[in-house]
């Protein structure tokens, strides 16, 4: 009975996820043409092609990596939603990972799939709501949000997020965290220009940490056998 319900839910999630993703794709690619119609001029497709070759390819590679890395973390429902709503690294991934910890679910289980979907859907709705309210109140809010005093706070949202996350994850995995932290610090100190490509540096950092975790896990299993 339970297995049947889970299978039905997952089948429905994939069907719905694919349908809404395709509709969103059409809407997002169609919007510049629709707005172009309002403005009286359509996109210059040769400039789009040239631009895509110069900046788009890098982001395409990044998208493939994001898909391969984050889909297993998010599951089906969370995955479809996260790729539709965006802001993965700075919001959806930390949100879903923490939600998993709060609920105590295990990656790859139906429970985790449900927790991840609830988390990403809530996070996306709150973002949509905050941005909609912000846009609605743009004129009165602008002086507050752009005040000189508050600028350092808003410029440091991501460091604040990763500081809190670092404590949460390092305290239980200090030995594991040491090597990637050291390696990344040395790399960024010796090649400061890399700070502009931090999102790409996640790949070697994550790869190294997974390798070290795998070696430790393998050793633990051998010892337990």
């Amino acid at each position: 009975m339970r297995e049947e319900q889970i299978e039905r839910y997952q089948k429905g999630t994939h069907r719905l996820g694919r349908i809404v993703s395709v509709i969103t794709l059409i809407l997002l690619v169609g919007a510049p043409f629709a707005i172009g119609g309002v403005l009286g001029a359509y996109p210059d497709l040769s400039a789009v092609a040239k631009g895509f070759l110069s900046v788009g390819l890098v982001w395409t590679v990044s998208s493939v990596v994001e898909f391969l890395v984050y889909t297993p973390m998010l599951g089906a429902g969370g995955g479809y939603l996260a790729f539709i709503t965006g802001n993965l690294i700075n919001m959806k991934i930390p949100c879903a990972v923490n939600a998993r910890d709060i609920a105590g679910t295990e990656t790859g289980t139906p429970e985790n799939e449900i927790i991840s979907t609830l988390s990403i859907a809530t996070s996306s709705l709150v973002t949509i709501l905050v941005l909609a309210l912000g846009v609605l109140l743009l004129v009165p809010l602008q002086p507050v949000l752009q005040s000189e005093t508050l600028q350092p706070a808003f410029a440091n949202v991501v460091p604040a997020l990763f500081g809190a996350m670092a404590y949460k994850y390092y305290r239980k995995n200090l030995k594991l965290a040491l090597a990637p932290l050291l390696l990344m610090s040395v790399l960024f100190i010796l090649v400061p220009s890399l700070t502009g490509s931090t999102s790409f540096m996640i790949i070697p950092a994550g790869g190294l940490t997974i390798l070290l975790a795998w070696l430790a896990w393998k050793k633990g299993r051998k010892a337990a056998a």
Partner: protein
Amino acid sequence: MNMLSQLNSAPVYLICGGIVAFVALVCVIFMVRAWRAGRAIGMDPAKMKRVITFSATFTVLPAVGILLGVIALSGALGTPWPWLRLSVIGALHYETQVAQAAAEQVGMKTLSAAEMTPQGFATIALLMSLCILWGMVLSVFFNKSYLKKLGGKKKEPGKGPGFGDTAMTAMFIGLVSAYLGSYLGGFASGNGMFAFAGDWKPLLVAAVSALVMAGFTWLSEKKNMAWLEGFSVAGSMLIGMLAAVIA
């Protein structure tokens, strides 16, 4: 009507707002389905409510940060388009970079309303859309088969916990390490190699935020204040960000 007024006109708001509303509806549908499925397989509703509360409080501050991205881009692209981009699919670090690169492709020196033309805008908007939609395209074609492949290897009974959870935690530790390393590198060599004269605020903010998180964890684990857990990340971030204002 000047260019910025055209970009902020009612029809443009209607097009962008319509897409945002569609995505909001999609989120509600996924949420209701997940809630019902959770109840059907016997998940604790209190646990699911805690996840929803946590996710909502966690999101508010980063969302305000994203709103600043909307404001920053609205000077050149009008308000509706950045609003759409950052509500749906976009990412804060991506939008400005691609918008700037796209502006160069249409012959603009800088991304600004003064140089913007209707065709320039439509071209920039299309390029911004095309560059970042591949995650969604891959999801349409491969989400199901990829997850099936990963889930296909069933855990052998009595063999202890699988590697899946450890791998996810390790990936996240790698992600956090990359960012912390970049803050340290920015401070140590951002203004000349080993000059230690670069931007130190991200380091300070991360340290304060981590300390406050330690305090929240202590209260929630040692003082039986488990309810604090749902607010700990948002609270730590807020105090960390305040440190940047005071410093």
